[in-house]
């Protein structure tokens, strides 16, 4: 099935080459092929491809002998897993209670407007994915913006503009 074209409509995504030796290294060497570590394996695979490619998920299902539907269930349950390709940078705005009260809603709107993408979507040039997360557990420094696992505490429009200017300059 790995030869079929991607079916997502919003973004044109290039076919992903799956490196099965790398998958084997993650699944068998790093986690001993133990199905209890399935979520960790999925996270490791996502770190490599920036999303969970269908072929990689199928391979994982075969190796750890967990039905594909179960992995799909887990992948769709957690917002941190994506089955669609992501941009080069992933910008997550926390919309938890504390961040919401400190104006994260306006920040999401600002990025949406400037980059022309709705939350959860990726720009056409595959540079940026905008996400909203429910709580990153750093309410004391709200509002929080996370770019590629780096946290920006007490973020504001200026911080975001800075980031987007750098992105445009790239």
């Amino acid at each position, binding site marked *: *099935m790995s030869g079929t074209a991607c079916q997502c409509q919003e973004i044109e995504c290039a076919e992903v080459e799956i490196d099965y030796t790398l998958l084997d290294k993650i699944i068998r060497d790093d986690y001993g092929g133990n199905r209890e570590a399935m979520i960790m394996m999925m996270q490791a695979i996502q770190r490599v491809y920036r999303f969970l490619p*269908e072929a990689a*998920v199928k391979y994982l299902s075969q190796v750890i002998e967990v*039905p*594909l*539907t*179960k*992995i*799909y*269930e887990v992948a*769709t*349950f*957690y*917002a941190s897993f994506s*089955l669609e390709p992501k941009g080069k940078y992933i910008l997550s705005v926390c919309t938890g209670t504390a961040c919401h009260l400190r104006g994260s809603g306006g920040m999401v709107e600002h990025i949406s407007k400037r980059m022309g993408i709705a939350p959860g979507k990726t720009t056409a040039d595959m540079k940026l994915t905008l996400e909203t997360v429910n709580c990153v557990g750093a309410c004391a420094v709200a509002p929080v913006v996370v770019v590629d696992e780096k946290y920006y505490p007490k973020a504001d429009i200026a911080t975001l503009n800075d980031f987007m200017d750098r992105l445009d300059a790239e």
Partner: protein
Amino acid sequence: MKVLNIVLNGKAVTAKMGQTILELAREHNVFIPTLCDSPALEAAAMCRLCTVQVIEGKWPKFVTACNFPLRRDAEVVTDSPEVRHGRKLIIELLMARCPTSPELQRLAVDYGCDLERFAPLNDDCVVCGLCTRACEAVTGRTLSLAGRGVAIHVDTAFQKASEYCIGCGACVQICPVNKIAMEDVDGERRIILHGKIASRVKLPQCTSCGKHFGPVIDLQQVMERMGEHKIPPPNASVCPECSRRNLAIKLGKRYFEQYGVFEDEEGQANAG
């Protein structure tokens, strides 16, 4: 085993330790409406229709009867104004999802539901999870509940027709709102979910009459789940109808040929 003293709707009864309220109620012919319960599957408390009131100790609380195990002496109320009030809301919400279910329509009349209250979604599926639990019990490889919260829905992996379905039809048979369809066309069995083909299973062709039949279920997956690996897959080449007919011819020949009954029979007697 410890016996519990339960007051069920004002009547003193005894229950076994760990027995669920639903089991106890059924034992005593007390009706509790359910959509997602099946005696063959583990309770999942998805439809919430079986909500009852339990008083264990001081405070009354609402619990789902299907998966609430009784562990202490308690009082259970299955039909009071409070319980009916809560259940009415649940029925209204379910009716908004699936207005065509006769069972829900009956309940809606019984509970005097306001059907204008929630805008109809016409989603058809009530997300009871029976099909996914049945699928899991059989092979666990075709249907699952994808998404989370309000976005939860029954789906196949990657929204594509499953390669692993054995075409047993358990999901079709168990659906309480009859929203999964199955049809045998063009030599394949199709399971249709939300109007989309969820799986295609090739049906074998009878070598005797040429009709498609089956599916011949490959028990390999089932045996693997049971910890058995060495069962050869069944290999039927003749449909059950021809198999029976061929056997009848064979037996007939053996016992009645001497009387000249089979003189001009053109059939090849291959018993399947």
